[in-house]
């Protein structure tokens, strides 16, 4: 163990990325180069939507440049059938651990929070390491409900590779961003003139998995960081690509390397294999999910407790989250938004999760322009 002396400390000043002056200069540049026609740029990250809305970035943009949120909230696209399975396990078989975002999302009828209120054993943790530390085989078996995109999957894989406690299993609900984008573009379910790719998913997978979007679909691609300047610079880059041809540009190079994080990628490959996956409100997207490889199948909680998952990717009745997730509707265009559906009394998953577009718009006054 070695402590850092003050004089050794390097400084990493990220404040210019939040500088009003620099953001306004980038926005002025964007206004100067924007073409006359409307361009629709989609991001697929709840944190990007948070930054765009909280900093009022849409109000800085020329009216023809539209930034829309795609299916970037992992909790929102987790199917009711998966949540129902987790509830069944927590009621009958094991203590169920999960991340806080998952806690309040309703399955086909109730959420894990409701189930805990009725006596089911549900615990919320910040990190999977906390769940491992809290698991107590003497008191009974444990299950981790593991959701999230490529950023979270290597954490699950790392924990599995380093050995889990006795009687500890997983519901694996990880989903993958690039195959989902390919499937959505292929099916024509989304319309976009460029895509803003998530910075931390890309920190793991690198830049190459997006090549297909630029090469085969001709869609401009930028990998963006999470500060206001990152977002506006990324929009400038997408407009440039719209004029000169699509490529994959890495604006977030301070974190994303072309090869990503090789150790994390290797762990994902060792522990998981890809599978077709249902996305709530969207449908089945080929090769967009992960499941445990055969050699780790004894850690699969659904097999262990013989839970039969019937397919169900519906949204609650009257809820427009499906259209919000595909960027075809703004939250404020949903008749339930802010009246029947609020963070205190949410109807759909996009109002429950802190990464959901509806919740972000409600809390931070989101609007189209």
């Amino acid at each position, binding site marked *: 163990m070695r402590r850092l002396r003050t004089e050794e400390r390097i400084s990493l000043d990220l404040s210019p990325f939040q500088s009003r002056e620099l953001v306004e200069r980038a926005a002025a540049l964007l206004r100067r180069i924007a073409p006359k026609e409307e361009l629709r740029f989609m991001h697929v990250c709840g944190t990007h939507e948070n930054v765009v809305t909280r900093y009022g970035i849409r109000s800085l943009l020329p009216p023809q440049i539209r930034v829309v949120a795609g299916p970037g909230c992992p909790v929102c696209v987790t199917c009711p059938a998966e949540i129902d399975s987790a509830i069944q396990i927590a009621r009958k078989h094991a203590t169920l651990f999960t991340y806080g*975002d998952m806690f309040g999302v309703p399955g086909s009828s109730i959420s894990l929070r409701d189930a805990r209120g009725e006596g089911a054993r549900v615990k919320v943790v910040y990190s999977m390491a906390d769940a491992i530390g809290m698991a107590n085989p003497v008191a009974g078996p444990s299950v981790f409900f593991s959701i999230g995109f490529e950023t979270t999957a290597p*954490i699950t894989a790392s924990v599995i590779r380093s050995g889990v406690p006795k009687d500890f299993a997983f519901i694996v609900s990880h989903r993958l961003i690039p195959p989902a984008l390919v499937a959505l573009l292929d099916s024509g379910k989304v319309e976009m003139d460029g895509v803003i790719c998530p910075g931390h998913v890309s920190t793991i997978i690198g830049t190459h998995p997006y090549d297909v979007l630029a090469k085969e679909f001709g869609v401009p691609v930028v990998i963006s960081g999470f500060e206001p300047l*990152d977002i506006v610079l990324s929009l400038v880059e997408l407009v440039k690509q719209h004029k000169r041809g699509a490529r994959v540009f890495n604006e977030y190079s301070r974190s994303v390397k072309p090869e990503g994080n090789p150790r994390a990628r290797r762990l994902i490959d060792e522990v998981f294999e890809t599978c077709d996956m249902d996305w709530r409100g969207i449908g089945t997207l080929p090769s967009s999910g992960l499941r445990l490889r055969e050699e780790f199948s004894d850690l699969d909680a659904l097999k262990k407790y013989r839970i039969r998952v019937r397919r169900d990717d519906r949204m609650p009745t009257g809820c427009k989250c499906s259209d919000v997730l595909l960027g075809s509707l703004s939250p404020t265009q949903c008749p339930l938004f802010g009246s029947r559906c609020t963070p205190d009394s949410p109807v759909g998953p996009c109002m429950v999760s802190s990464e959901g577009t509806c919740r972000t718009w409600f809390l931070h006054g989101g609007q189209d322009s």
Partner: protein
Amino acid sequence: MQLCLAIPGRLEEIRGKSGIVDFGGVRRTVDLSLLEKCKVGDYVIVHAGFAIQILSEEEAKSTLDLLRQLEAATD
């Protein structure tokens, strides 16, 4: 927590596979097993209790330089 909200902090101590990271005054134990290598003083991006990358100061500077380059290119 927000699942994809990964935040930078300064690695202050290394204790085997984990380390102490300072997030502007708040110190937390962070798992370092997803990093090939790291050293005390590195700024790491932490997601759900795991460090997923070391931030590059040089690359941060070159991104800031991008705005000036783009402005020059469109003058």
